[in-house]
């Protein structure tokens, strides 16, 4: 039995390479993921209006069903899914009214006992960064990596519990364990413009330009992310020159490269930012 895993809607279609590389890389490290038998969209955004429990129902149902797997854990890798599921779980656990209303609505007796895990936390706490360091070779030695968390992983700090809200370090520790070199990247928790890609292109283009500029100034050779929307915005709105110099990868793809998993299993063929220079150097 693997650890219960919620891929989310984007990972089954537009970000299949994030799903593929996550499963392949973790399997190579002896961590099996077991996709939940039934799941829906998580809702993607946590409702910020008070008492908007309808906006939490989708996530609450996923959490309640995942708890029935009996493992006590749920893994998800998409930044949006992780953000929403973790915050809804926090609300169920700590807010009596939220718990009561959602219980009544779902007719399920779930009390927020699940532990929501990001694969970075699995790599740190289950595999161990020291074990990872010993497992990977020197393929990525000297490769300068910008760790791009975006806005969803670390804020709000109390609910997400993912490190400092504007300076988490788990991804840098992961990159060090891979034998690569995390750069001091000031854009690490800046927002890429997110869903405004549908409404305000200019906003996203400006944010993406700043993020590439910051990554370039600190000598990055690759940007890694955990978010399909960050990846899409950077790939779509990044200027061609930047994209060819600094490809954007999922952190699981970089992990897969370090573990010498064939690149077709990591979804690296035919992507927009060309990762080949990185692979050649690696």
């Amino acid at each position, binding site marked *: 039995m693997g650890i219960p895993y919620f891929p989310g809607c984007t990972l089954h279609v537009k970000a299949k390479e994030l799903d593929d590389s996550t499963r392949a890389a973790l399997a190579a490290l002896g961590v099996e993921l077991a996709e939940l038998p039934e799941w829906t969209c998580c809702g993607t955004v946590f409702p910020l209006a008070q008492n908007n429990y309808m906006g939490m129902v989708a996530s609450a149902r996923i959490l309640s069903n995942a708890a029935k797997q009996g493992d006590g854990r749920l893994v998800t890798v998409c930044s949006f899914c992780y953000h929403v599921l973790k915050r809804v779980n926090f609300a169920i656990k700590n807010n009596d009214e939220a718990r009561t209303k959602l219980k009544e609505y779902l007719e399920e007796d779930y009390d927020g006992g699940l532990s929501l895990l990001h694969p970075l936390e699995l790599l740190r706490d289950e595999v161990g960064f020291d074990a990872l360091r010993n497992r990977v070779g020197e393929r990525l030695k000297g490769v300068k990596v910008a760790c791009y968390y975006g806005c969803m992983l670390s804020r*709000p700090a109390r609910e997400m519990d993912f490190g400092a809200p504007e300076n988490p370090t788990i991804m840098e520790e992961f990159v060090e364990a891979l034998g690569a070199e995390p750069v001091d990247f000031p854009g690490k928790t800046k927002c890429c413009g997110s869903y405004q890609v549908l409404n305000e292109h200019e906003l996203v283009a400006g944010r993406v330009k700043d993020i590439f500029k910051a990554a370039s100034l600190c000598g990055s050779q690759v940007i890694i992310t955990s978010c399909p929307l960050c990846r899409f915005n950077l790939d779509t709105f990044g200027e061609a020159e930047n994209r060819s110099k600094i490809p954007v990868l999922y952190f699981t793809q970089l992990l897969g490269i370090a573990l010498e998993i064939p690149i077709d299993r990591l979804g690296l063929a035919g992507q927009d930012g060309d990762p080949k220079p990185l692979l050649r150097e690696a």
Partner: protein
Amino acid sequence: MTRVEMTLQVKEISGQNPFLCMQCGLCSAGCTGRGIMDMLPRQVMRLIQFGNAQVLDNRSIWMCTTCLTCTARCPRGIDIARVMEALRTINLRRGDGVLAPEDLAAEFLAEIPQMALTSAFRKLSA
């Protein structure tokens, strides 16, 4: 809506006290959308304190990406992202959104990740 009603409604929906704002501007300095906003988050907070209903018609509330940088930085502990959501919510409950499916190009829709569609329509569409 009277001035008092507007401010009370924002307080109720956001669960935040706008009168805690001391106009320091940290929210605006770090805001993702500041480059294209007509009114910075600090100014939005000020208009709410005055009960000025013009704040409901400003474009900035629709440019917010709910990245929570303002919330993380506010020295008065105001969850400003919730205040922006309250202003959007008042509009959305009246049927006034800014995003319409028919305005989106089909070829763009074919490329965009599903999560962007769901989140944008939840935030910006009535």
